[in-house]
């Protein structure tokens, strides 16, 4: 069977149904254990004090803010090339998750920035590109809501998604591109010298896994909802 057959709405509803509760369960376990571990059982950082505990929310949310847009880009390209309706609906379903992740990253970053940098906000390359990414998410959702014809909406939002991908990429690599501003480089790296200390790294990885699985669970749940909405519209047109 071809991989594309899994994108058939009926097949998609079939194979995703049993996965969703498991994904929510795994995400809940990872997040509860990771956050309790990080909050209660890790020491303060010698420079940042207890604010280092914000890392368990800020870093996974920021990663998912960018990765959600990348997922939307892939789904949009599949829509533009192969016209699979489920891929367009998956991109639409992912946008509110991405905007929430971006908002968490911006809010926790501002709260963390005040005691460390002395300001909630600075027009730093990474902060600014994240704010623009947040605005792109809002624009993407507004465009879906503004157009009645679903295929036209999928076409135009896919183009917007491709344009916004520049800022998703900038958000990730802004620190490296400009090498200036207040924000530090990546917290996780394959280079052990650049990585956060093991005592913070282990619960952080668990939280990142929790955020990723939560994203999968939410995208599947919301895509199933969008497919059902499309079916309701089709039934109403028949009457």
């Amino acid at each position, binding site marked *: 069977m071809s991989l594309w057959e899994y994108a058939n709405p009926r097949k998609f509803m079939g194979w995703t149904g049993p996965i969703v509760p498991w994904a929510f369960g795994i995400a809940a376990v990872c997040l509860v254990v990771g956050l309790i571990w990080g909050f209660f059982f890790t020491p303060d950082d010698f420079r940042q004090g207890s604010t280092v505990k*914000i890392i368990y929310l800020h870093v996974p949310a920021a990663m998912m803010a960018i990765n959600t847009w990348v997922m939307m880009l892939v789904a949009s390209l599949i829509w533009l090339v192969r016209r699979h309706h489920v891929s367009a609906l998956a991109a639409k379903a992912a946008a509110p998750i991405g905007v929430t992740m971006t908002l968490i990253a911006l809010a926790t970053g501002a709260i963390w920035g005040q*005691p460390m940098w002395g300001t909630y906000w600075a027009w730093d390359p990474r902060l600014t590109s994240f704010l623009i990414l947040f605005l792109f998410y809002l624009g993407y959702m507004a465009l879906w809501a503004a157009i009645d014809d679903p295929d036209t909406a999928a076409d135009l939002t896919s183009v917007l998604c491709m344009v916004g991908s520049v800022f998703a990429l900038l958000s990730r690599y802004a620190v490296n591109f400009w090498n200036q501003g207040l924000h530090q480089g990546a917290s996780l790296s394959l280079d052990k010298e650049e990585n956060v200390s093991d005592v913070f790294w282990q619960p952080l990885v668990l939280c990142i896994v929790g955020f990723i699985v939560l994203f999968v669970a939410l995208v599947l749940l919301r895509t199933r909802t969008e497919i059902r909405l499309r079916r309701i519209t089709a039934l109403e047109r028949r009457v």
Partner: protein
Amino acid sequence: MPELGKYATEVLSAYAISLLLLCGLIGISWIKHRRVKAALERAENG
């Protein structure tokens, strides 16, 4: 409760805002899922 020192407000508010947003997203997604599922069942059954 761990000793958060002078940054207790910052740490607790970061956790409160994040968990509120995450729970809101999950809650809204779940409520919409239940409503749409019920609406489709009604539409299909007459």
